[in-house]
């Protein structure tokens, strides 16, 4: 294990994985929110054309990919803001055109051998250079900083674009910004995860986080934790099993998603078991509703015909001082009466 950290390329790969594990879920949550999960995938395709241009012209592929993907992102958002069906087709042209141009240009300059191409598409732990690592660190810091500061605004626009526009937020600018952040994430991830799989690290940890949280804030934290676990864990496993790092990272992320789904399900099941719901409760309690309010821990119970009712999600819970099993059959009958009054 420790031998792994002494290898230069492994240190670079692990750091690059850490950066992308942090940054990708923070951008991805807004894509999940906008139900645009595949946009990162499309920008990965576009970035491949940029990589190819870099290889063909002997420039740093990371930089040419960054410029191409960012331009693609701006074009996409402008198309989306403009219209409907023609925009959709234009996106398809851009995405497929990107990957096709990428493959053709790389073939032209490197011949038929596709080792380099494969590592760009599916990730490789051996390819991150020290210079690129610095670039990735700076770009990740920018992504994390911008999403942290603008999180409320990105959340508002992704959640309800029409309302955001009506309240005076710069909707188009924020949407373009999110697309550019997505493009930058794609580039940061292109070495360890690869351009075909990067979208997964933006989406899957967020899908898992949704299973474990009831607020946007908590979902954000969970997604970052799961993202870092997947990316760093994936690089370690890929070193030991000698597999493509991108594929390994994504499989770990999906495994974590399955675990999160099971855990979330069990937690909800236990919670449902442990609490007793006041059935068919048409009245809504509140200050001045006529029922006595009794503070109870972090919330307020209302005395309702001998029952203590507390708001929970869309319904009311029975908050007796005794746990539910203590309720006798006669009390159940009384309960039935009270809730239908």
């Amino acid at each position, binding site marked *: 294990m420790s031998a792994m950290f002494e290898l230069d390329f492994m240190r670079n790969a692990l750091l690059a994985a850490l950066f992308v594990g942090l940054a990708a879920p923070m951008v991805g949550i807004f894509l999940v*929110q906008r139900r645009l999960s595949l946009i990162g995938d499309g920008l990965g395709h576009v970035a491949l054309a940029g990589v190819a241009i870099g290889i063909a012209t002997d420039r740093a592929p990371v930089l040419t990919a960054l410029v191409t993907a960012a331009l693609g992102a701006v074009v996409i958002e402008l198309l989306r803001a403009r219209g409907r069906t023609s925009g959709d087709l234009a996106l398809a042209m851009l995405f497929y055109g990107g990957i096709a141009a990428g493959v053709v240009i790389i073939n032209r300059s490197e011949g038929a051998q596709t080792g380099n191409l494969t590592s760009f598409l599916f990730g490789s732990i051996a390819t991150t250079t020290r210079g690129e690592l610095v670039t990735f660190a700076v770009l990740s810091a920018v992504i994390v900083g911008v999403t942290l500061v603008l999180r409320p605004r990105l959340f508002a626009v992704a959640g309800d674009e029409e309302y955001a526009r009506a309240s005076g937020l710069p909707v188009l600018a924020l949407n373009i910004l999110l697309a550019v952040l997505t493009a930058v994430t794609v580039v940061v991830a292109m070495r360890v995860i690869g351009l075909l799989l990067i979208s997964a690290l933006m989406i899957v940890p*967020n899908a898992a986080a*949704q299973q474990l949280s009831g607020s946007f804030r908590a979902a954000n934290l969970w997604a970052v934790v799961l993202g870092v676990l997947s990316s760093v864990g994936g690089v370690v496993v890929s070193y030991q099993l000698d597999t493509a790092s991108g594929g390994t990272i994504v499989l770990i992320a999906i495994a974590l998603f399955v675990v999160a789904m099971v855990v979330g399900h069990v937690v909800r099941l236990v919670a449902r078991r442990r609490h007793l719901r006041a059935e068919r409760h048409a009245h809504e309690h509140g200050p001045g509703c006529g029922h006595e309010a009794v503070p109870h821990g972090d919330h307020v119970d209302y005395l309702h015909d001998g029952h203590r009712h507390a708001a929970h999600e869309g319904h009311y819970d029975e908050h007796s001082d005794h746990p539910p099993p203590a309720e006798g059959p006669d009390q159940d009958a009384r309960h039935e009466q009270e809730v239908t009054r």
Partner: protein
Amino acid sequence: MSAPAPPVVELRGAAFGYRGRPVVSDVDLTVRRGEVVAVLGPNGSGKTTLVKGLLGLSEHLSGQVEVLGTPLARLPDRTRIGYVPQRHTLVGGVRATVAEVVATGLLARRPWYRPATRADREAVLAAVEAAGLADRARFDVETLSGGQQRRVLIARALVARPDVLLMDEPTAGVDRASQDVLTSVLRRLADAGTTMAIVTHELSALRGVVDRIVEVDTGHVTFDGTPEGYAVHQGALARSSGRTAAR
């Protein structure tokens, strides 16, 4: 209300529409401070386009539109107009709490680099309470009933203390029991002097809240007056055309 209150919204020969084509036109309408106006009309009558025009969501094509004495296009602070849209999902594909959704109503009020202050958080709690959701501020909005979700949107519009609330079908698709709570929330707002324009086709749910009715049909205002006057207008309409007014 003896002396006429100052106008909050004033339209003179206004037309609104999309892509340069008017949907409603020749609208003269004044909403004064403290008034609760119901905007009625069948689907496609232009009532929603009219309200969206005031929000800058449909195009203002001609005529004058003033909000608080300022031409609409030059209104610096859009949160002076609170908007309660008709929505099926509140936050898109993620989870968020009631307080998180309501807090977005304050964003346009502060520069992008400034985080929420303590006063902002208190305003959020106050708005949540005014909408009768104080108990539920930290629950995931997706777990709430349809009526409660509608009140989340009302709280989001209230949080910036707007001068007028524009609501699009607040009672549509809400079950009977939550409709009562919703109506009592609206009544409480009205009693507190909140100016409101409510687009609806269920006048019965707003009985006792509304003090003026504006009817829009085929792109024009066809009635503007009191609820009592509206009943007479409907009766006259039914008699003259020999058909029963269904709406």
